[in-house]
């Protein structure tokens, strides 16, 4: 019988395997190592690595779409004679492909946090050296990193392509830098919102729908009202309405500070003063997301 392999009188099959219990005297790398392990496991998991083949399909597909679009833009830039710059700005890329980013966060945020909540694995983490903050930080950082890979990789492709096409180096480097800052901010903001929504809706499928709702419905609502405001020519209203959806927040910040052309109706992006408000709201949302996650995990401790 399997439970008796340790005794001398085990059955034949168990005696072959019986090498007795070996204790572990090696190193224990502690809390920071555990946090890093959780980070890398979650980051890999966001792209389906270390998970079933089925769960690799969607994230890899979305990542492929992002890169493919970037490659096409590069191909156009190189093939078209007399071009001096890329067809789009670096900062525009994420705004154009926001639906893909939204799908990615909607599919991966729930798998990152809802699984542990739904199957009550969280107490197993907290009965180990890591603390609540380590868990939240590792999950948050992993999700933000995954989004940064998704949104940054195409920008790198665009940048390399522009250099191959021998566009102006200083110009391209500046644009690339601005683009990377913008997507970094976007990654942190989206990761926070996505994880909060997912952590509050642990039920299967629910989380996906809720994240999509937060990301796209707010955008739909904001851009509709903005369009109406444009029709009634209230430019001020367009500026402030942008505060109410994640992607328009990023649009506002990069229009004000990162030399982007606003995608708001009529290009009515915020100026520097309103831009500060945009930035404050983004940072407040990031800090708020962290605080909500910490609260959420205080209750599921053990």
């Amino acid at each position, binding site marked *: *019988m*399997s*439970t*008796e*392999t*340790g005794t001398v009188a085990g059955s034949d099959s168990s005696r072959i*395997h019986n090498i*007795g*219990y*070996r*204790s*572990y005297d*090696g*190193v*224990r*790398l*502690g*809390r920071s*190592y*555990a946090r890093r*392990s*959780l980070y890398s*496991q979650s980051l890999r998991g966001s792209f389906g690595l*270390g*998970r*079933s083949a089925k769960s690799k399909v969607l994230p890899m597909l979305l990542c492929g779409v992002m890169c493919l679009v970037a490659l096409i833009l590069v191909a156009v830039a190189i093939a078209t004679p007399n071009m001096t710059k890329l067809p789009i700005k670096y900062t525009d890329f994420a705004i154009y492909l926001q639906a893909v980013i939204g799908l990615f966060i909607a599919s991966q945020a729930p798998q990152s946090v809802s*699984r*542990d909540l739904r*199957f*009550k*694995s969280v*107490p*197993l*983490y*907290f*009965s*180990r*050296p*890591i*603390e609540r903050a380590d868990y939240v930080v590792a999950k948050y950082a992993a999700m933000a990193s995954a989004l940064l890979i998704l949104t940054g990789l195409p920008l790198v492709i665009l940048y390399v392509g522009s250099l191959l096409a021998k566009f102006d180096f200083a110009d391209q480097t500046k644009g690339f830098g601005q683009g990377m800052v913008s997507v970094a901010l976007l990654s942190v903001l989206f990761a926070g919102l996505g994880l909060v929504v997912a952590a509050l809706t642990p039920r299967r499928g629910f989380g996906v729908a809720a994240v999509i709702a937060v990301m796209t419905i707010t955008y739909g609502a904001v851009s509709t009202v903005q369009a109406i405001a444009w029709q009634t020519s209230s430019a001020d209203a367009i500026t402030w309405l942008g505060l109410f959806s994640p992607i328009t927040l990023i649009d506002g910040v990069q229009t004000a500070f990162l030399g982007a052309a606003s995608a708001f109706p009529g290009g009515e992006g915020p100026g520097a003063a309103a831009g500060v408000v945009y930035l404050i709201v983004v940072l407040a949302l990031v800090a708020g997301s962290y605080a909500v996650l910490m609260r959420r995990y205080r209750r599921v*401790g*053990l």
Partner: protein
Amino acid sequence: MVRATTVDDVTVIATESLSKRFPRVTALDRLSLDIGPGVTGLVGSNGAGKSTLIKILLGLSPATEGRAAVLGLDVATEGAAIRERVGYMPEHDCLPPDVSATEFVVHMARMSGLPPTAARERTADTLRHVGLYEERYRPIGGYSTGMKQRVKLAQALVHDPKLVLLDEPTNGLDPVGRDEMLGLIRRVHTDFGISVLVTSHLLGELERTCDHVVVIDGGSLLRSSSTSDFTSVTTTLAVEVTDSDDHPDGTDALRKVLTEAGITFVGHDGLDAEGLPGAGHILLVEATGEETYDLVRDSVAGLGLGLIRMEQRRHRIAEVFRAGEAHRAAPAATAGVGQQKGSGHHEH
């Protein structure tokens, strides 16, 4: 710290006037325990404070008052160090169904601080020791309850802790699975050298497994004693006889004869008043050795009665804690274990 099993007087868990009060309930009430190496059962009905105690011992919940130390480490200040050396198996399901046992336990080993290679080796070893073989590569979702319990146990043991806290490990198992799990728990101490604190709301199932049993109720200590004190000092014989024309009440006749022979009876007038079928006709005789068996046999034959049964019946912990507690409390108060608390704790 030295591995606990080699040092007899090491205290694994010590609490001193430990209390935990919530706004509306008192979960623990001045609990003082002193638990040594070995397998210790923590018994109490649901809501007796078992889970609260485990939370405090893991350093995850501050005590309202009093102190507690696990493996010599203070729970209030050295929680992380405790959690590195202690394993915990929760009562509820905690396994994601879409990964294999190997993947899951490797991940948990790394969460305990084991380097990647060591995590894989220890996982393979530990899963084998808890009795999971080929199935460990399949997703956990397809496992039986017994196999899931083994995975839960494996994740608590994978980092080779000095102590494991097992919360109701036999919950939901069928009788066979229950026996296997209890055997496994016994081996965790005897073969692996890891001390065990195992909770249950069933007294009976712990008596075979544990060296020591702690009973708590309403958050305070009811009794803390070595299991052997209850189960191996004496043996009880259950004797049932037929009636005959000469002796319309065979049981009573036999009792008279045995009393004259100087035999001691157990329980109320020697009658088993457990409420089982035929209980009123079963004599509980205290056996002091082989001669008691002979005496009973000869007495029954001498009276011309039919002997329906004569069987050994171990004292069950349950009996010891019941009403008859007072008259056999003496041998229970052994050295090195927490003392019985003062009165006033029998709340129900």
